[in-house]
């Protein structure tokens, strides 16, 4: 793994222009996304409050600049996810491996996300999180359950704890997983960038049209109110 990263770094140095990556955390509420994000930033947290929106952080991973999005996972905010797929190079899907009762809900959300036109085929890291608890699902079980091998994308499933036993350090397997994801995205960088550029442009045009229509509607309504 470290050899890989050294190669990656040397590759960047040779190329000159630094590449940058965007990743997104997905997963049900309470899966541990925000806790993972804090770990990634090197500021482990005990008490992430629930996310009902969006946050982004820039981190350096083996000399590579990575921007990571953290989104809310609750069912009444989950619909925002699809608005971020177009611009990401890879997806980190976090599952609470100790919560058997919500596995099928996680699978539904997972399948919906990974089958979206803008997300399909992009490098994918699945985290079987909360391994510090008892009766957790293994990475193998989760790979089978989510039918990862049927997906046409590079994927890896790791067992991890975003919070260590002492509550502070995340497991190394999580960091390894993220490095793997960045490496995989780097290998496909050119084609990913091309796809991202196209998809982002299409989305931007859609957005602009939507906003223009809204402005028109609102102006009309305001005029009516004044009469």
């Amino acid at each position: 793994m470290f050899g890989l990263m050294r190669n990656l770094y040397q590759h960047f140095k040779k190329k000159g222009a630094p590449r940058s990556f965007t990743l997104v955390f997905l997963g049900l509420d309470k899966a541990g996304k925000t806790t993972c994000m804090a770990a990634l930033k090197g500021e482990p947290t005990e008490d992430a409050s629930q996310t009902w929106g969006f946050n982004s952080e820039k981190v350096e991973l083996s000399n590579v600049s990575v921007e990571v999005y953290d989104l809310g996972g609750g069912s009444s905010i989950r619909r925002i996810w699809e608005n971020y797929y177009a611009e990401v190079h890879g997806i980190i899907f976090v599952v609470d491996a100790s919560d058997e009762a919500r596995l099928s809900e996680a699978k539904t959300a997972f399948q919906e996300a990974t089958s979206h036109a803008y997300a399909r085929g992009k490098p994918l890291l699945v985290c079987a999180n909360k391994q510090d608890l008892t009766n957790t699902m293994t990475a193998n079980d989760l790979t089978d359950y989510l039918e990862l091998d049927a997906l046409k994308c590079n994927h890896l499933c790791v067992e991890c704890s975003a919070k260590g036993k002492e509550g502070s350090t995340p497991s190394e397997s999580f960091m390894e997983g993220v490095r793997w994801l960045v490496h995989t995205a780097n290998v496909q960088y050119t084609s990913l960038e091309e796809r991202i550029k196209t998809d982002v442009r299409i989305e931007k045009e859609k957005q602009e049209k939507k906003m223009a229509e809204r402005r028109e509607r609102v102006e009309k309504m305001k005029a009516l109110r004044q009469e």
Partner: protein
Amino acid sequence: MGLLSLLRKLKRTEGEARILVLGLDNAGKTTVLKKLSDDDISTITPTQGFNIKSLNHDGFKLNVWDIGGQKAIRPYWRNYFEQTDAMVYVIDSADRKRIEETGLELADLLEEDKLSGVPVIVLANKQDLVTALSPNEVADGLNLYSIRDRPWQIQACSAKTGEGLQDGMEWLVKQVRPSKK
């Protein structure tokens, strides 16, 4: 309940934070502020200028500015942008007719240089009413997912019952970077 207990919990011992509360008229901004201060909320009238609530705890000072939202006074909002650490944008979640209007006002605010990068919490207020929009609908109505340059959060709440206010403020105060000033 209240801002003071929140400040205690945060254990900040220095600095100052300026919080700006904006939103259309009738959204419930003044009611939110009064409820958080445990004041009476039965006799609130539309705000013509602004209200300010200052709190001190252990050397940390929190200033909350509540600005009137009537159409005629919205152009004056810009007088209050300077040095803002975090923004509370209050919406009446039951006012479906004006969701797009309030979304456009917010979009304009987010373009302001002086507010660039300022974290924003949308208080989806009046959740005690049955017609209130859900967070998914609010995110869409306000087009929140076009924001990339700052953190944002939706907090469903009711200034009438107080539900959700504390959680929302907690998120917001956490976003304020310590001793920036």
